């Protein structure tokens, strides 16, 4: 089962943002972009501002702090090593270890959160243009249904360099990798 989809390539960030605004105004919502650089203007145009990585970070840091304190505390209680009248659970050194572990776990959870939220690692083929790794911006409209022509026209009106129709596996998985990026004759006109 495949769905028709449209991928348009643009030279400029401005054109991409303009096309996104027009597509959203026309009622197309299932839009994603690919780009050689990150762009805040594209995020705003897509109205995607949620950044959840910080939640993973916070969870990791708290877990790390707890681990960093409890490990020496429990070990000291189970195997006491009296030193110069110091308490068995010494706050200053154990707090230092807690800070170190909070940082370590916070970093590990941040990386883990990034991979999970970004859908990585993935080695499946998906609609992708290698030119977006160099100098082009791409808009992928995943579910164009019977309004493909309208979507293509909107992209072209925003100075798209090429606009292609592709088939992708429903609901959003890859069926036909698009890596050659040869523009259709139709798109050139």
């Amino acid at each position, binding site marked *: 089962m495949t769905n028709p989809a449209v991928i348009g390539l643009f030279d400029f960030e401005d054109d991409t943002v303009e096309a996104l605004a027009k597509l959203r105004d026309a009622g197309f919502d299932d839009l994603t972009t690919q780009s050689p*650089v990150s762009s805040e203007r594209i995020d705003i145009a897509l109205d995607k501002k949620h950044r959840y990585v910080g939640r993973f970070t916070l969870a990791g840091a708290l877990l790390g702090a707890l681990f960093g304190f409890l490990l020496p505390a429990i070990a000291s209680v189970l*195997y006491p*090593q009296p030193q110069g009248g110091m308490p068995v659970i010494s706050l200053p050194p154990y707090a230092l270890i807690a800070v170190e572990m909070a*940082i370590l776990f916070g970093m590990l959870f941040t990386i883990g959160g990034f991979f999970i939220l970004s859908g990585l690692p993935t*080695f499946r083929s998906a609609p992708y243009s290698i030119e977006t790794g160099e*100098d082009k*911006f791409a808009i992928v409209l995943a579910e164009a249904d019977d309004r493909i022509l309208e979507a293509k026209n909107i992209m072209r009106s925003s100075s798209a360099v090429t606009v292609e129709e592709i088939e992708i596996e429903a609901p959003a998985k890859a069926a036909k990798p698009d890596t050659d990026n040869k523009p259709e004759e139709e798109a050139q006109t």
Partner: protein
Amino acid sequence: MSDFHGVYVIDYSEVNQDVVKTLKPSGRYFAVLFLFGLLVLGFLGLYYLMSTVGLGLTGASSGIFWVTDIPAFIFWIGLAHGGTLLSALLYISRTKWRNPIYRYAEALTVFSILIAGLILLMHLGRPWRFFFILPYPVSAGAWPSFRSPLLWDSLAIGTYAVGSILFLYLGMIPDLGALRDRTTGWRRGLYKFLAAGWRGSDTQWRHLNSAYLLMACFITPLIALVSSVVSWDFVVSLVPGLHSTVYAPYFVIGALYSGIAMVIILVILARRFLGLDNYITGHHLDKLGQLLLAMSLIWTYLNAVELWSSWYAGSSFDTQVLLARIAGPFAPLYWAMTLFATIFPLLLISRRARVSSGVMIVIAALVNVAMWIERLVIIIPALARSHLPNAFADYVPTIIEITVFVIGPFFLLAALMMIFVKLFPSLSIHEVKELRLPRRSNQVSQALASLMGMPAASAGHAGPAKARGNQGGVGAPGAQDNEDIS
């Protein structure tokens, strides 16, 4: 300032091509790498000899039980911090001139911390027992002492090493994706695996930016934490000359100072040998020179504070150590350090000196020599002038010791950096491109400049016209006039 100051054109495709070019090794490259490989083997061979014969091969005596291994360890930890400052702290402050140079800084951080760890293992004498310093029940179910600074040290350095490697990798993912699409053979396989399916989607970029910022926020305080913990190895003892409250900030600043100096050396070498003149310009050297000068002044102040407080306290034990440093057997080293780290860097007040590769590389090298000496004159005189006169000792390092702990690690760093720059993108492709986002407004300013007969437009992405002729380079002054440049 208008956009027309200086030439500044980034052709996005050209950035990819230029980075791919840096990955192609030449015959001369392999010859130099082979030479460094031999030198590293020699260094490891001498270490093997030292570990089997024993500390008699060094200048150690009953009073001076630490020789050049501990100063070397502190020095290499310090080098790592300069990289972190440039990559993480300047990222948080959105300092754009870091973009073309920070990858070297991050690589330096990773390799320096690994070398510091290696020296720590060498210092143990019996490296196969290294797990004794980890929080792990090692003997009869007993755990290491969590109150020992050595344990704090191993955890801090371990955290720093893991964090630095992850930070380097995270920032490289988009570039690995770009290289995956432009390479073939085993390189393509390597980049495909490491890029993990990166496609540059808006979701991926958004989460990458969040994660990278958070990682930078974690890595930055690690600079202070790791150097402070290393200084506490000495400060929490009661040894005269080491028991000083100023050592934590002194170590942090010394670390940043030597690290920035090493980044300058690497950046100048990369500019020369990787053909990245268009990306790393006099503008970057100027900024790095300003940073180095600032660090020099702060370090000089802290050094003076350390001297003054030792003298003013009036403790006879501290005075003995102080005299050994400034007027005793260690005086030549101490005053050489002052000359190299306080006097010569004052040349950087002149912008002409800062933008000169030759002057900068000489000053940076001298700063690193000075910072190596600094660690030596902190540790050894304190051990050589302990509480009782009968514990006083003289110290002369041996050739083997100097080769293993002073010179050898530099060969290892050179070999690792050479391998790194041919395996991975040494220039951050996406962050260089981010200096100038491709916008029509930029292209219009470029066209206007041409019409007005100005030297060149300061447009960003060349766009369909594929404008060429970058003479000013990335991060050149004109670039800062654009709204994307801070």
